[in-house]
C-alpha cells in the first residue's frame, strides 16, 4: 500500500467528529466499528488524537512570529550597543547635501558587491504573512515573492550560472534570457528552466504548480528527468508525494486585464475600486487622505477579506463590515 492511499483510506470525517466529541449516534456506531476492526486503526487514531491535542500547542505563538520585525528590533539593539561599525555597512546616512553623492557611491559599491560577492555565498529572501517583496537580480531578472515564500539565490549567480532555489511558497519570475546561462529554479522534486519568459511557481508541501505567462519554460521532474516544454498560457502541476505530474493545461495568459487584481504602484483608491467591481461590494475609506497612497500587490484568486487584510496591514488600517459595506479605518489599537 503506498503512502497516499494510507492517508486517503482513513475515514477522516468520522475522525474529525470524534476528535471534537461531536459524533452523531449513527456515525458513532460506524466509528466504533472502524476502530474495532483492526489494532492498526486504533493505533492510527491514537496518533492523530495526540497530534491534534498535544502536538500543535505552540502554533498560535508561531503564527504571531515575524522574522522581519524581530530583526528590525534586534538591529536597533545592536545600534544602541554600538556593535556595528560604519565599515560594516550602517545604513542610516544623514539627510544633508552629501546624501546624494553618498548614495551614488553606495549604489556603485553595492552593484559591485552584488556582482562579485554574489558569487561567494547564496542569499536568502523570505516574506512574512501578508507581505510581498520584489527581488531584483544582477542580470535584470526580477522575482516577486508572494506572502510566506522563501527563496535562495545560489552562490555564483550570474557568473557561473543562474540558479534560484524555491524552498516554499509562491513566486513570479520575470527572467531576462541568456543563452549561455539558462535561468533555473530548483525545488525538491522538480526544476524549471526558462527559455526567455515570465512564469509563476507555487510550491506547497505536496505539489508544485507552474504557470507560464510569456515565452516558454522547460519543466523537469526530478525523478523521471523527462523534460516537458510549456508555452505561454500553459500550466502544469506535479504531485511531489507520488511524483505524478498531470497534463499540461492551457489557461489564459496571465496578464493584467480589465478584471485583474494585480496592481503595480496603484493608488489605494484604484485598488479599492477594482475590488468593489470584482466582488460587487461597497468599500469605503474613512480617511480620504490615504486614498492616494500607492501599493504594489497581486490579489488574483484571493478572497475579498484576505485582500482587504493585505491592504489594511500595509497602511495600519482595519476594516469593519457595516450594513454589508466594508469600511476601512485607522486601527484603534496597535497589536502588541
Amino acid at each position, binding site marked *: 500500500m503506498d*503512502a497516499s492511499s*494510507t*492517508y*486517503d483510506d*482513513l475515514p*477522516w*470525517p468520522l*475522525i*474529525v*467528529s470524534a*476528535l*471534537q466529541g*461531536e459524533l452523531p449516534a449513527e456515525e458513532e456506531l460506524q466509528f466504533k466499528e472502524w476502530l474495532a476492526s483492526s489494532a492498526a486503526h486504533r*493505533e492510527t487514531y491514537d*496518533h*492523530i488524537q*495526540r*497530534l*491534534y491535542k*498535544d*502536538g*500543535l*500547542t*505552540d*502554533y*498560535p*505563538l*508561531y*503564527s*504571531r*512570529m515575524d*522574522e*522581519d520585525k*524581530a*530583526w528590525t*528590533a*534586534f538591529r536597533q*539593539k*545592536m545600534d544602541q*550597543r554600538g*556593535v*556595528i561599525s560604519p565599515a*560594516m*555597512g550602517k545604513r542610516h546616512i544623514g539627510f544633508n547635501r552629501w546624501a546624494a553623492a553618498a548614495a551614488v557611491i553606495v549604489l556603485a559599491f553595492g552593484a559591485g558587491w552584488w556582482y562579485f560577492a554574489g558569487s561567494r*555565498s547564496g*542569499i*536568502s529572501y*523570505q516574506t512574512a*504573512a501578508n507581505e510581498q517583496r520584489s527581488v531584483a537580480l544582477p542580470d535584470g531578472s526580477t522575482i516577486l515573492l508572494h506572502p*510566506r515564500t522563501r527563496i535562495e539565490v545560489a552562490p555564483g549567480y550570474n557568473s557561473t550560472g543562474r540558479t534560484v532555489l524555491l524552498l*516554499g*511558497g509562491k513566486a513570479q519570475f520575470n527572467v531576462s534570457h541568456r543563452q549561455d546561462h539558462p535561468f533555473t529554479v530548483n525545488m525538491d522534486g522538480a526544476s524549471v528552466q526558462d527559455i526567455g519568459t515570465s512564469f509563476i511557481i507555487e510550491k*506547497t*508541501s*505536496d505539489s508544485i504548480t507552474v504557470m507560464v505567462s510569456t515565452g516558454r519554460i522547460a519543466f523537469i521532474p526530478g525523478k523521471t528527468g523527462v523534460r516537458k516544454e510549456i508555452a505561454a498560457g500553459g500550466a502544469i502541476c506535479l504531485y511531489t*508525494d507520488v511524483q505524478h505530474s498531470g497534463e499540461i493545461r492551457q489557461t489564459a495568459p496571465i496578464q493584467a486585464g480589465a478584471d485583474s487584481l494585480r496592481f503595480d504602484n496603484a493608488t489605494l483608491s484604484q485598488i479599492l475600486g477594482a475590488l468593489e467591481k470584482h466582488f460587487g461590494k461597497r468599500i469605503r475609506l474613512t480617511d480620504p487622505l490615504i486614498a492616494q497612497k500607492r501599493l504594489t500587490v497581486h490579489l488574483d484568486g*484571493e*478572497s475579498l477579506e*484576505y485582500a482587504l487584510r493585505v491592504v489594511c496591514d500595509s497602511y495600519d488600517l482595519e476594516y469593519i463590515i457595516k450594513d454589508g459595506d466594508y469600511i476601512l479605518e485607522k486601527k484603534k489599537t496597535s497589536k502588541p
Partner: protein
Amino acid sequence: MTPEEEKIWQGIQEKDLQVFENYYKGHYRFFLLASASYLKDSSVAQEIVDDIFMRLWEDAGRINVQTSLKSYIYRAVVNRSLDELEKNKRLRQLQQDLALQREDSAQWKEMEDNELRIRLYRAIDQLPERCRKVFTLSRFEGLRHQDIAHRLGISLKTVKNHISRALKDLYKVIGEWNALWLGIISINFFLALPLGLQVHFSVL
C-alpha cells in the same frame, strides 16, 4: 559543521551583516519556539534569543563552535532558558523537573522535535486560506463545527472537509518526517515536549 554552516559561520566571524541577518531570520522561529516551550513566555524568550545572537555577533572571533552552529546556539538558548526559570522561585520545582528530563533526553532529539513542530506549523500556514481558518477556529479557538459553519456561512460538511484536509496534511508531515529520519517502518519516536508532556507518534 556542514560546508554551508562553515561558510555562514565564517561570514559572521568576518562581521558580514547580511549573512548574520539571513541566519537570524532563517532560524528565528526555531530558537524562539525552543525557548518559549520552556518559559511559556514569548517576550522573555525573545530577550534570550536576542541576547544569544548579540553575544554570537560580538564574540564570534573567540567562540569555538565544535559540532554545528545550530546545535551550539540551541544549547545556549536552552541553557539560558533554564537559568531564567531558576531565577523565578515559584518555578524552581519545574526547573528541577526539566533538568531531570534533560538528563534522559539527548539534545539532538529535542532539536529534531522542535524542527518537526516547525514543519507542522509551516504546514498549517500552507493550507488554503479558508481551510486554515476553519482548522484554527476548531483547534485553537475551540469552536464547535456547527458554530464554525454558522460563523463562516458554510455547510457543516464543508467544515468537516476542511478539517479533514488539514489533519491529513499534518499527518502526512509526520509520515514524511519519520521517513526522512528513519527510512524504515515500525520505528517509533517520541515528541518529548517540556513540562513532562510526551506525545508518541509512530511511522505510517
